């Protein structure tokens, strides 16, 4: 029942030179033999395992496409089943024709995530790995790809195992005193238990902190560029995009709508929005733009506030300074190539020096510093740790970590209250179980449904 043969188009649909169709299951090779005729021999099976074979796909003696095909024998495959991959021409028509043909010959269209589901169910991937495959497929930047790939290698699972082992050690040291009360063994002390728990707490915290980075790497950092009209917001956006997209003029209020762009700064995906300038206005269209700017502004992870060095500070500027004071902000003082009118004393009074960048965007001055600052803000002081700790991007993992963290805090509180060991252990067991949910070692009733409902088609 589990290993009927499934098939799916594995490459993104759209115009492309090559597309790949993948088939997995016990009939995969038989079906391929039925539709594929190699140039030099009779059947695909006449070639070696994992050998790329040139030939044609036939539907009743009619050639459908010219392809390369390869078969991979179980169990050393992604799903641990027999797999056939057909590399055909890209584009919707040949891909769909071949897909239909394979289905006519006995394959079934794969459900979303079914290949990965099989890899997971065959024990080829653990839960964390299987989930990261899905992140891998939908990764928006190379960095996001790295994150998922780390997990595919099992680094998160490894980290979780390490922590679970440490918990087992604590429990064992508690148990020995309970089960052998009359033996000549020193009871473990509250301090010792607390030290272990603190160490676990810190490890979980590191992972949680990295998970925020992970979320950014997966979903993108919501970034908003704000400032009065005509301070150079659109120029900044264009410079970051390195192409003219927004209309740039010298007339204040030219950008009347909100433009959202996805860009990639040193591996970090930014969802960047150039807002209409925030100012009081009577122009209705502009007013709508201003309202939407405020909306984006409120949701932003990062705010880039642009000031014009060649102007004096106005009330509008001060209003914005007030709005951003508790937010994650970088302040760009633009147009430093022009005569300076801005009063730096006032600026320094309101804004921390370390988030100020000076530059002239039209001349590309200060752009590198700005990009570095963004990277620094995303990784913070964690940048060193990234190489040691896996970055977590999956919401289920983050939730489990947060639950584990909460239980750790409870356990520490129990220790501080000098509760009897048997009570502390209730908390400790919960930490153990929540961590196990990440790697799938703790078996949950509905975990399978939860996960596979989220998997997408293909891999």
């Amino acid at each position, binding site marked *: *029942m*589990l*290993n009927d043969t499934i098939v799916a188009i594995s490459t993104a649909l759209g115009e492309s030179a090559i597309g790949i169709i993948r088939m997995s299951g016990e009939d995969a090779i038989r079906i391929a033999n039925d539709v594929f005729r190699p140039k030099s021999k009779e059947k695909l099976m006449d070639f070696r395992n994992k050998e790329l074979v040139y030939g044609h796909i036939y539907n009743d003696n009619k050639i459908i496409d010219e392809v390369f095909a390869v078969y991979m024998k179980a169990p050393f495959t992604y799903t641990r089943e027999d797999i056939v991959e057909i590399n055909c021409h890209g584009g919707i028509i040949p891909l769909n024709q071949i897909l239909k043909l394979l289905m006519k010959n006995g394959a079934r269209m794969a459900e979303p995530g079914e290949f990965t*589901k*099989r890899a*997971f*169910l*065959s*024990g080829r991937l*653990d*839960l964390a790995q299987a989930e990261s495959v899905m992140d891998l497929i939908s990764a928006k930047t190379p960095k996001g790809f790295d994150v998922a790939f780390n997990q595919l290698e099992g680094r998160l699972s490894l980290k979780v195992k390490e922590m679970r082992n440490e918990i087992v050690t604590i*429990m064992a040291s508690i*148990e020995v*005193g*309970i*089960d*052998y*009360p*009359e*033996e*000549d063994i020193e009871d473990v002390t509250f301090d010792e238990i607390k030290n272990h728990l603190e160490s676990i707490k810190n490890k979980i915290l590191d992972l949680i902190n990295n998970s925020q980075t992970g979320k950014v790497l997966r979903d993108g950092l919501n970034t908003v560029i704000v400032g009065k009209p005509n301070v150079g917001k659109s120029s900044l956006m264009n410079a970051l995009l390195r192409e003219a997209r927004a209309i740039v003029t010298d007339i204040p209020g030219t950008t009347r709508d909100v433009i959202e762009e996805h860009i990639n700064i040193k591996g970090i995906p930014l969802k960047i929005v150039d807002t209409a300038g925030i100012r009081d206005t009577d122009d209705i269209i502009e007013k709508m733009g201003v309202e939407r700017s405020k909306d984006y502004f409120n949701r932003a992870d990062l705010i880039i506030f642009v000031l014009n060095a060649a102007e004096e500070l106005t009330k509008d500027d001060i209003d914005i300074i007030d709005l951003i004071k508790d937010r994650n902000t970088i302040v760009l003082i633009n147009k430093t190539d022009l005569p300076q009118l801005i009063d730096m004393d006032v600026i320094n009074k309101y804004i921390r020096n370390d988030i100020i960048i000076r530059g002239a965007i039209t001349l590309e001055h200060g752009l590198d510093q700005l990009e570095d600052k963004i990277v620094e803000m995303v990784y913070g002081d964690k940048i060193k740790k990234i190489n040691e700790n896996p970055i977590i991007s999956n919401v289920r993992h983050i939730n489990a970590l947060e639950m584990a963290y909460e239980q750790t805090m409870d356990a520490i509180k*129990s220790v501080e*209250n*000098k*509760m*009897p*060991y*048997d*009570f502390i252990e*209730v*908390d400790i*067991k*919960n930490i153990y*179980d929540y961590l196990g949910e990440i*790697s*799938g*070692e*703790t*078996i*949950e*009733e509905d*975990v*399978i*449904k939860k996960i596979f409902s989220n998997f997408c088609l293909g891999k």
Partner: protein
Amino acid sequence: MVKKMIRSAGKFDVIVIGAGHAGVEAALAAARMGAKTIMFSINLDSVAMMPCNPSIGGTGKGHLVREIDALGGEMGLNIDRSMIQCKMLNKTKGPAVHSLRAQADKNKYHSEMKRVIENTDNLFLRQAEVTDIVIENKQVLGIKTSTGSFFEGKTVVLASGTYLGGKVFIGNSVFSSGPNGLAPANKLTESLLENEISIRRFKTGTPARINKRTINFEKMIEQYGDSDIEPFSFLTEKIDIEQELCWLSYTNTSTHNIINQNIHLSAMFSGNIEGVGPRYCPSIEDKIYRFADKDRHQLFIEPEGLDTNEMYVQGMSTSLPEEIQIEFMKSIPGLEDVEMMRPAYAIEYDCIDPLQLNLSLEFKDINGLFSAGQSNGSSGYEEAAAQGLIAGINAVQKIKNEEPLILDRSEAYIGVLIDDLVTKGTDEPYRMMTSRSEYRLILRQDNADIRLTRKGFALGLASALRLEKLEEKEKSMVLEMERLKETKIRAEFINPVLEKLNSTVVKDSMTMLDLLKRPELNYENLAAIDIDRPELNRDVMKECEIQIKYTGYISKQLAQINKFKALENKYLPQNIDYSQIDGLRLEARQKLNDIKPLSIGQASRISGVSPADISVLMVYIEQMRRTNSNV
């Protein structure tokens, strides 16, 4: 048919092979539930014999005794009648791990139990060696004895302890023997093998017994019992006895030297013993060999009874030759002039692989045959008794065509014990420990009656008196909780007490309930200000206090139990052919086919079945469910 030609010596509902701690509980439970029961022992003087330590209870084991008692078993009552010292262990730790242990007068334990058996209706006690279990077409028919008699039985409970193929080792001396010099049962194993039951060889041991008159107690440390004895049985009101002392002493480097020089003479080290011994109960030579850096090991001297001078040397089990045993004992403070009465020995015996059993303790492949106790690979009197009780109950349930009693891991230590044995199996004699229980905050020894007595009563085992006592306890708990909620104590009365106990003073008043929530306050130290307190049973105060103080933890544990139950309630059809589920790894397919777990939960505890295998199973079951509901 050969069997038809044999003269029948009688027809019984339940036949119990062995009258040790497992057999005794099995036979008593069966007879009390109304089944005509016969119990065989090689020697009736060894009924409920304690061939090793002279004590009942201990960590985890004390819980088992309480549970046996709550269901209507005999062990708790019998130790209450025969104890000579009693102690609640782990008192400095939390209530979940408090464990009772009592020193028993061995003779009295035996004679009291024998008296109860002799006076139980429906129960017959017979001295004979059982040589064959008669099985035809996978259905048990009865047993044969060495004298050629055939006893017909609807069900048979195997409780053969360490008698099967028993072999004793003392240094180089090896001889066929049961425990304590009794005759072994050398023929029954063959009968089991003929019926395709897989047999293993385990080993255990016991230390020497020494003469009390040759011990210098002045060089040892006295070990007292509790001043206020808490009985094992929920039926026992009070135990008022003059308690005996136990004694503590230590080995030293010269003891260790003697043992090290002679270690090659130990049967354990000479390679003569093939059986697997318990790691948690190592011989002294094993301890010295494995923990070479420890310069001393402790030993306890415990009386074997009131009418004897024999003393048990706990911690000193060994299979060294007699003369070496005497030599190393003499190096221990207080034992310089010791006279040995019985040498320590190791014993090897046949037992079955418990993976062949259902959770009801019936063989999966042999209808009507049950097995309990050391013959299942466990160790200890209490573990044996717990299994005996369940096997006896389920033998009767089988005859009555009723559902077997299966306690799960969240209901009882007995459930943990049996689930561990029949699901995980064991590579060494299995001992109960509190750490084996995941939900021990709920499975306390103080609430065993609340957990189990109703079940025992419904089975027709626990008496009406037990139920009455339970209902009384529960009623007064409810009343008392009510009272605590409503009793407000004014500041002027309570603050002086609080100050004395280093507890924060209150403003105008506080309820007793809130006061009891404070870790530093309890029933005892609040007695003086709680003037309206009614006469309360100790158990009632304890239950209320636990509920009040630890409510947060208890609800956390209950949440854990809910998660556990969700998986236990995902039943697996018994006709699944696991070898046909392709996602499963080969080892898992084999294990699952062997064990045929009842639920996903049980399957997840089988060693060799990984979480990934469980995911496969869950998906398989879900698909099956969907397919079926489409039909």
